[in-house]
């Protein structure tokens, strides 16, 4: 069921090879991501999970090309990525719809950038709006939608650019548990329908097990690959799977891996606060 962190294989569509990210801080250089290597196969759903401060979001920004890395290579279908790339579509944790655009115009945004004629891009946008289940809301503006609906608009906008890889950074973090489970169903359904290669960054074990083919567990700072777990649950999956015994075993197993790292993170944070206050007091 579990395997040591493997090196990327030749048929992987996304390869993250020996990536290191370091930041200069007033306390010295901090290594956020430390020699991380993994690959994602075409059509696969891979989740990266780890405690807060393990470098998950840094890794998201590196793969998306929003952040430079100190060492290593990120490549898509053999092409090295040195910045934002059209083959990677990003869905962000924060609410990221454009408030001045209607749902249709939000979703049509990437199509507008490539110069698609208006009628065609509206038709295409409507297809993706329907895919995320927002029929009837085409002319609404983001301030007229709920948080979950706005996140679906963001997802549809990213899917409209037809990326080779869908990269999501805790897209449901700001939503309540029930909406999160239902949206997970929607993402799974779309991912299976489009055979969309997906990389999800999350700290939610249930969400990761519910959706993934594999889960990459990261260590607390510096962020390294601790283990990659194959999730051998039947597909197609829905949120109903959270009630199964096998699901519970996977959650327990991943939590066992994460607990140690999360505890380390908590101790580190407490020490930091202690030193900070001691420094402040003196």
């Amino acid at each position, binding site marked *: 069921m579990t395997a040591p962190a493997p090196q990327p294989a030749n048929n992987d569509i996304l390869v993250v090879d020996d990536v290191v990210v370091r930041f200069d801080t007033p306390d010295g250089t901090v290594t956020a991501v430390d020699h991380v290597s993994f690959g994602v196969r075409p059509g696969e759903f891979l989740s990266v999970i780890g405690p807060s401060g393990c470098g998950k979001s840094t890794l998201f920004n590196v793969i998306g090309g929003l952040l430079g890395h100190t060492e290593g290579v990120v490549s898509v279908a053999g092409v090295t990525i040195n910045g934002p790339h059209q083959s990677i579509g990003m869905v962000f944790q924060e609410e990221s719809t454009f*408030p*001045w655009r209607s749902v249709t115009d939000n979703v049509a945004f990437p199509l507008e950038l490539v110069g698609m004629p208006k009628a065609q891009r509206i038709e295409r946008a409507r297809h993706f709006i329907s895919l995320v289940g927002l029929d*009837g809301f085409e002319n609404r503006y983001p301030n007229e939608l709920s948080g979950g609906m706005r996140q679906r608009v963001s997802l549809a906008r990213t899917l409209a650019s037809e990326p080779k890889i869908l990269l999501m950074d805790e897209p449901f973090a700001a939503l309540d548990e029930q909406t999160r489970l*239902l949206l997970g169903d929607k993402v799974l359904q779309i991912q299976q329908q489009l055979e969309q290669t997906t990389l999800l960054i999350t700290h939610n074990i249930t969400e990761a097990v519910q959706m993934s083919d594999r889960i990459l567990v990261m260590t607390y700072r510096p962020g390294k690959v601790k283990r990659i777990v194959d999730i051998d649950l039947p597909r197609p999956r829905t949120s109903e799977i959270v009630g199964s015994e096998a699901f519970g075993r996977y959650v327990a197993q991943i939590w066992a891996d994460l607990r140690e790292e999360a505890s380390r993170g908590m101790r580190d944070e407490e020490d930091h606060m202690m030193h900070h206050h001691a420094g402040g007091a003196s």
Partner: protein
Amino acid sequence: MTMTATTPTRRFTLGNALPALTGVGTLVGFFVIVELLIQTGALNRFIVPPPSEIIASFPRIIVEEDVLGRFVLTLTECLTAGIMLTVVGVTGGVLMQRFKLLQQACETWVAALASAPVVLCYPLFMVIFGRNAWTIIMMGFVAGLPPVILKTLEGISGTRKVLVNVGRSFNLTPSQQFWKILFPAALPTIFVGIRLGLIFALINVVGVEFLINFGGLGQLINELAERYDLAGTYAAICFVVLVSVLFFMAVEKAERWLTRAE
């Protein structure tokens, strides 16, 4: 999970009209109270004219004082100053956001200019532009410029980072990043600056018309006040308020059009 919705339609109902009716009612109520206070002698009619006299003086100032011509002149001066301060102010704010050195060099004194009594510089402007409409327009323009610059700077600098990152993830060029993300995101704040700028411009335009006795509603108010025609003075002030109302309606329309239209 599929959801459907219908586009909401706005129908005229008493509930929708209630805020506007309450506003008008409050104003009418205020005038009635003032009228009663004057008629009963609680307020001196030689300091505050009765609203009924102000209303009665409208036909007189329209016919005898060419108030409509003056209204058009003041409106044109305000409009010219408004267009100039919008174009120059927004450009200035964008440039200050784009070039940090410019921002560091100028932001403090632009902010200081916003609270400076620019109207006192009118003799200097008369020396530069002469005793004509351009002095009035330039006074309005200079007085209204700082809030537009500062609010444009604030709006663009305050664009949420995630929206900028969405643009970056779609590999936008710097020009696309500005026109498709930064500028529309900043528009509501820019319009706050334009509204403030127009208030300052209108105050200065009417104030300088009053001071240099050149023309427009400001000069009319000055003349009527000097003749001690209080009812006429207040009636002329109503036309200044009308200029202000027209401007705000136009700005509101422009904002709706720019922030909602594709």
